[in-house]
């Protein structure tokens, strides 16, 4: 490949891809509406920061992908692609100012152009965009040329600043809730009403650099020290680690404040759901898209038994909970029977249908006298634990934590049992599994029932946490989200479920105020994650063996 070809292939083409991405972000309105929030107060609005990040990233990728080792070519590619990327935006501004494209693209507003050109009218604004693109390209080029250490430091420091700015809505209330001299001072040092202070920005970057340098200098010693410990001591360290983790989990909500605890409970409910579906999909390999049905059944059973609105059964939460779980399991078996003979995608659509049937029935006017119809069921009392009313998310958190612990325990125990092996054999090859003496009917039904039981447990807690249940809460998206989270986490992996739930449910909740673009980013992230890490964020241990083992096979077959 000649240099000229590389400039075209890597500089211009990747720049064009970047240009389209930036254009999309601008036209869907992200730059404009994120422009109201500042990363650095008065200097850098979040929308612009996003455009800059894309521009730099694209230039960096363009340079990084260049197969020619000459630094000058890499640098040139970075500059070209940065420039091309900004060219798309410049073009948008030029066209948008002269023609009315707003009839079609609602995001192409004067406010967008103003944000992009920093308010400079005429050609000046367009030149500004191009110049900034060029600077981004040069910056990325410099990053490429730099050594590993300073490059990493710069990138991570910038990332820290961006994250601090992005999460300001979460961090400021925590500072505030302290109401304590030092923290008030710290809060004001870092943040204004909108964005980081300049001093705070610099300080955060410096603190980050110092910490990471310290860690870099010492990490090897720490790791080797741990490795050199005798086995007994290492085990002790591990036990101690577990202990610390347990203590951490227990005190966590006390430190987190209301909203983060609320997010934790949401994540926890999804972990419960994910662990259940992990048995059905991850272990037994049965793709179930109607998993929400059991969640709904759990919720509604608790609602009907405890709420005085429709019937006055007068159960309390603890009496209703086992009934909910048992009915969930029964429903799991009942769903399981008709779909026993279906495979793969036939199973997926049949279960999806089951989920929808349950939701529609709950919503229907026909069953309204018993299930509340569209008006749902309200006034579900909070759980009462030994005379203590669990009202706040912090209290519910413990309930969910206990549930998660129980379910994780059951999952681990089952996985390494005869039943667990039968599930996995069935996942791998149904016919052979049967030829090994595995009763497919019983094994499948056990999988459905166990998953359904976990899901119903989650639903029961959900109902008592929210205090009211509505048919609309049990839509297909819950099922889809749960499937996504177990695969994003790493299919069949228990820690994967936790990570998946935290990333797919927790992160979007944290960034709730960007609700309009939540699904947009969520969708893009799902695609990107699957393309970059198809095995999931925390894959099951055996997949690690596999990566390891692959080389082994190759050498063996070669021999």
């Amino acid at each position, binding site marked *: 490949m000649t240099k000229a070809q590389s400039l075209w292939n890597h500089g211009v083409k990747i720049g064009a891809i970047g240009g389209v991405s930036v254009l999309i972000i601008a036209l869907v309105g992200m730059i404009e509406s994120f422009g109201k929030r500042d990363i650095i107060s008065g200097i850098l609005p979040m929308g612009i920061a996003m455009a800059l990040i894309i521009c730099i990233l694209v230039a960096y990728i363009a340079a990084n992908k260049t197969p020619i080792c000459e630094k000058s070519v890499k640098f040139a590619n970075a500059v070209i692609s940065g420039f091309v990327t900004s060219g798309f935006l410049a073009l948008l501004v030029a066209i948008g100012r002269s023609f009315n494209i707003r009839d079609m693209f609602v995001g192409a507003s004067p406010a967008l152009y103003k944000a992009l050109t920093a308010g400079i009218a005429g050609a000046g604004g367009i030149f500004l965009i191009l110049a900034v693109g060029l600077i981004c390209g040069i910056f990325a080029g410099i990053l490429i040329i730099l050594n590993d250490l300073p490059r990493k430091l710069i990138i991570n420091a910038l990332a820290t600043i961006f994250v601090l700015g992005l999460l300001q809505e979460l961090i400021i209330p925590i500072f505030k809730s302290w109401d304590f001299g030092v923290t008030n001072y710290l809060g004001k040092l870092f943040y204004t009403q909108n964005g980081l202070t300049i001093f705070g920005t610099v300080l955060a970057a410096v603190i980050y650099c110092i910490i990471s340098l310290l860690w870099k200098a010492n990490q090897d010693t720490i790791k080797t020290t741990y490795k050199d410990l005798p086995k007994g001591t290492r085990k002790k360290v591990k036990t101690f680690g577990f202990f610390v983790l347990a203590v951490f989990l227990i005190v966590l909500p006390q430190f987190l404040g209301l909203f983060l605890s609320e997010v934790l409970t949401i994540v926890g409910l999804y972990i419960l759901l994910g662990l259940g579906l992990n048995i059905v999909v991850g272990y037994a390999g049965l793709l179930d898209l109607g998993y929400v049905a059991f969640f709904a059944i759990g919720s509604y059973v608790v609602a009907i038994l405890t709420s005085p609105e429709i019937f006055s059964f007068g159960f309390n939460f603890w009496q209703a909970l086992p009934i909910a779980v048992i009915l969930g399991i029964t429903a799991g078996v009942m769903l399981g029977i008709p779909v026993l003979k279906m495979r793969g995608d036939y199973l997926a659509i049949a279960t999806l249908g089951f989920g929808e049937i349950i939701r529609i029935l709950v919503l229907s006017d026909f069953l309204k006298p018993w299930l509340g119809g569209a008006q749902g069921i309200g006034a579900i009392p909070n759980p009462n634990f030994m005379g203590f009313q669990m009202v706040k998310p912090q209290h519910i958190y413990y309930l969910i934590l206990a549930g998660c612990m129980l379910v994780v325990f059951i999952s681990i125990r089952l996985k*390494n*049992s005869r*039943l667990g092996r039968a599930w*996995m054999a069935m996942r791998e*090859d149904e016919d052979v599994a049967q030829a*090994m*003496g595995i009763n497919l009917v019983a094994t499948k039904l056990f999988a459905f029932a166990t998953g359904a039981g976990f899901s119903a447990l989650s639903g029961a807690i959900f109902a008592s946490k929210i205090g009211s249940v509505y048919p609309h809460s049990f839509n297909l998206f819950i099922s889809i989200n749960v499937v996504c989270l177990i695969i994003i986490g790493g299919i069949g992996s228990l820690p994967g479920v936790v990570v998946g739930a935290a990333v797919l449910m927790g992160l979007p909740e944290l960034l709730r105020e960007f609700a309009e673009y939540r699904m947009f980013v969520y969708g893009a992230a799902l695609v990107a994650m699957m393309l970059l890490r198809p095995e999931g964020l925390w894959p099951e241990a055996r997949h690690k063996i596999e990566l390891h083992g692959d080389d082994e096979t190759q050498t*063996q077959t070669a021999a």
Partner: protein
Amino acid sequence: MILLSIQEMTKRFGGLVALDALNIEVKGKTIHSIIGPNGAGKTTFFNCLTGFYRPEEGEVAFEGNSIVGLSPDRIVYKGIARTYQNIRLFPNLTALENVMIGYHVHLKSGFLGPILGLKSTIKEEAKAKEVALDLLKYVKMEGKEDALAKNFPYGEQRKLEMARALASQPKLLLLDEPTAGMNPRETQDMMDFIEHMRDELGITIVLIEHQMRVVMNISDIVTVLDYGKMIAEGLPEEIKNNKTVIEAYLGSGDAADSH
């Protein structure tokens, strides 16, 4: 002693008659080979025996009891195990897990046992693991129990599949072309191994095989199928000189419809 007796077994796929009124008897503790050109119905025969297909007509008696129409998992409980022509291991499970799944029929624990950590369950699991490790050792694969099945080379995958089949402690073992794709040395190992199973473990073996050298060397009795019909049966020497058999193999060159 007759372990397995098949009478008038017929299997059709639409208009095609895959097995045509087969009558075969397999004596205990023998190696019984089934040979025949491609498409003769050998694998279909195995599938019918193991319950994967249900023959339209005929009777199969194993140790005197009818097993026709039983589901494959029940047939395993009766004491029949099999391997596959194109190896079908559980690719993403470890070698140990593969073999332990073979031992499934001898375990009893259900749902609550493992959760509550019952003593019987723990004991049972330990036993299962021991049996599986022993079997791996038996097929000379000790120390590789934690590798994933799909990462083994071809020969070891064959052996692993064999170990998995043995784990169910069958009385009758159906082997579908166990030496396919092996070099002469591996083939010889496999032959020794098969004879070993008959002699030391006392397992009856029904063998589908294409390599005549293998068939002629280790078989106690040979049955020849062609177009779903039995065209000859007898000792290896008899078969070697049987005219119909030679015709079936050499005479008609168009017997190439594959299955």
